[in-house]
Each structure stands twice: as structure tokens, then as C-alpha cells.
């Protein structure tokens, strides 16, 4: 019973991924199973969810995520997502999911051309998703670290209209009071977008690192809400599958 209720995460590993072990650690801290899946693997194995971790896959050659998206494992991730599986891309993982067309838009050089490594505040813009249901709803923004040079989210006007109309914007950079301001935008992202979901809400990506924010010793535990949302969504999926069976 206990093992049956533990959720199994696949963490992808590309050459120059560097947050793969952080993700494994964070998920184990939260009581889930996590295994690494190599970029050349053509199958994910028996897993409940996939995390595409941060790093500099393939040395960011050509564009961030451009090479990784054609790796064998990403074909498996596309199939997994098409079947409704939960996929979260963090930082470079977000860039890879955009390059793969699993999420709309693209991530370009930070507006000030600098690499930003700091804690930011995030406003959660939609709580009714498998990635946000467990995030605090008391109006206090969550605090999560970022570490990127190419995190400026861009999408054309029709895409932004669609993202807003369908509430696909999940997180926006804000100040400590929760106000979405230009000054709180670390990289120039349109509409202060820090993270989005696809139309089905089973694929999401964000530049900030929830995987680096699950233990108080690192300064913030606010990443727990995001990862716990996925775990809870998987648990309720499994419960309803059992009920149907």
C-alpha cells in the first residue's frame, strides 16, 4: 500500500544538465521516487511524471534547448505528454519544452545581458492546475531562486492573448508585496511571465527553481508547493484509476 502510493518521477539527464541531482533530491525529500533517465534512452519506463531539469544541455549550442529537443528521450516525453502525462520543465527544461513545441513561445537573452542568480518573488496566477493547487493562496508571493542568462520569455501577441484567455500563465515575477511590476522583472519577460502551462495543463515550464527551494537550510521552502501539487495531482489520478478499475 505504501509503495503503491509513492509517485515515480523520471528526471531527464542530458550532457551538461546540472540540476538533475537537485531534482532527484528534492523529490525524495518530498517522499516520491525519482530516477534519472539518460538522453539516449528511447523509453521512460514505468513513471508517473517527468521533470526536465535545469542546466546547459549540449552546452547551449545553437540555442538553449535546441539540440536537446531532438534527443531520443524527448520523443518519449512527447508521447508521454500526448497521452496526458504530467511534464514539468525547470529553467533549461523550460527552454527545451518551448523548443520542442510542447509549450508556446521562446526564451531569449536577459534584457540586461547579465546572468541572474538570485531569489525572486512569484505571483501564482492560476491555482487550478496540477502544478499550482498546493501553492499558498493567502496572497503572499512565493520566493524561489533563479539562475539563468536566457530567461526572457517571448511570445507573439496572438499567443499572449491565448495564454491570458485560457489562464495558461501560472507564475509572474512580482515584488515582495505581490505586485507585478516592471522593477520586479529580472529578465525582461513579457507580462513578467516566469512560467506557463500548455492548453491541457499537463505540461508546464518555469525559469525559477522549485527544486532548489524545498529545504529551509537553503533559504526557502516555497518550491514544495509546486512539486507537492504535482504529487497530489498524480495521487488523485491514481485514486480515480483504482476506483474505475
Amino acid at each position, binding site marked *: 500500500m505504501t509503495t503503491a502510493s509513492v509517485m515515480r518521477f523520471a528526471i531527464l539527464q542530458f550532457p551538461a544538465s546540472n540540476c538533475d541531482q537537485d531534482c532527484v533530491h528534492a523529490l525524495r525529500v518530498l517522499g516520491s521516487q525519482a530516477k534519472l533517465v539518460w538522453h539516449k534512452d528511447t523509453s521512460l519506463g514505468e513513471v508517473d511524471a517527468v521533470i526536465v531539469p535545469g542546466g546547459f544541455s549540449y552546452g547551449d549550442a*545553437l*540555442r538553449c534547448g*535546441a539540440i536537446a529537443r*531532438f534527443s531520443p528521450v524527448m520523443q518519449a516525453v512527447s508521447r508521454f505528454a500526448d497521452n496526458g502525462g504530467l511534464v514539468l520543465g525547470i529553467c533549461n527544461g523550460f527552454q527545451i519544452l*518551448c*523548443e520542442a513545441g510542447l509549450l*508556446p*513561445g*521562446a526564451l*531569449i*537573452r*536577459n*534584457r*540586461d*545581458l547579465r546572468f541572474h542568480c538570485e531569489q525572486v518573488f512569484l505571483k501564482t496566477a492560476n491555482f487550478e492546475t496540477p502544478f499550482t493547487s498546493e501553492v499558498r493562496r493567502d496572497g503572499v508571493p512565493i520566493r524561489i531562486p533563479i539562475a539563468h542568462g536566457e530567461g*526572457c520569455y*517571448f*511570445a*507573439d501577441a496572438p499567443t499572449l492573448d491565448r495564454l491570458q484567455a485560457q489562464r495558461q500563465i501560472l507564475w509572474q515575477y512580482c515584488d515582495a508585496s505581490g505586485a507585478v511590476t516592471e522593477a520586479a522583472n529580472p529578465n*525582461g519577460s513579457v507580462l513578467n511571465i516566469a512560467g506557463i502551462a500548455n492548453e491541457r495543463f499537463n505540461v508546464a515550464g518555469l525559469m525559477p527553481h522549485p527544486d532548489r527551494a524545498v529545504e529551509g537550510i537553503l533559504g526557502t521552502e516555497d518550491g514544495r508547493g509546486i512539486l507537492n501539487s504535482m504529487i497530489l495531482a498524480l495521487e488523485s489520478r491514481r485514486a480515480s484509476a483504482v476506483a474505475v478499475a
Partner: protein
Amino acid sequence: MKAKLVITPKKAVLDPQGKTVANALEHMGYAGVTGVRVGKYIEIDLAPGTSATEAHKALNEAALRFLSNPVIEDYRLEIVE
């Protein structure tokens, strides 16, 4: 035989590098510069005797799928002997 691919950021996309270079040119005294876009240049060697038409078709597809990102970039492809 070569393919030359010039990739530039789309007009609507922020190009902070281009802006910085434009500012530097201005500070250096180069008058009359009204804008700079910084992009990429990719040169691809092709086997001798390759059909230029076929190469253009194939690389056009590669440019759209992989070599450029149509969300943020435009490209210009040229096949030269």
C-alpha cells in the same frame, strides 16, 4: 559548394545585444547608425555535385525545424558554388 544561412532576431523581439552594439558605435563617433540587430551566420559545406535545388529545399526545412527558431528569428538561406 556551400550553404549560407543568416539568422536575425525578429523585429518584435528584444535584441539587447544589438542595442548595446548600437550604443557603442554611437559613443565611438559613428554617426548615422539608426539600429543594429545581432544575429548568427551558419556556413554549411555540401558535397560537390549536390543539386542546388534539392539542397535549398532540404536546408530550408532544417532552418525552420532546427537551425532557426521561427518564434523569435528570421533567416535568409543562400546556396553558393
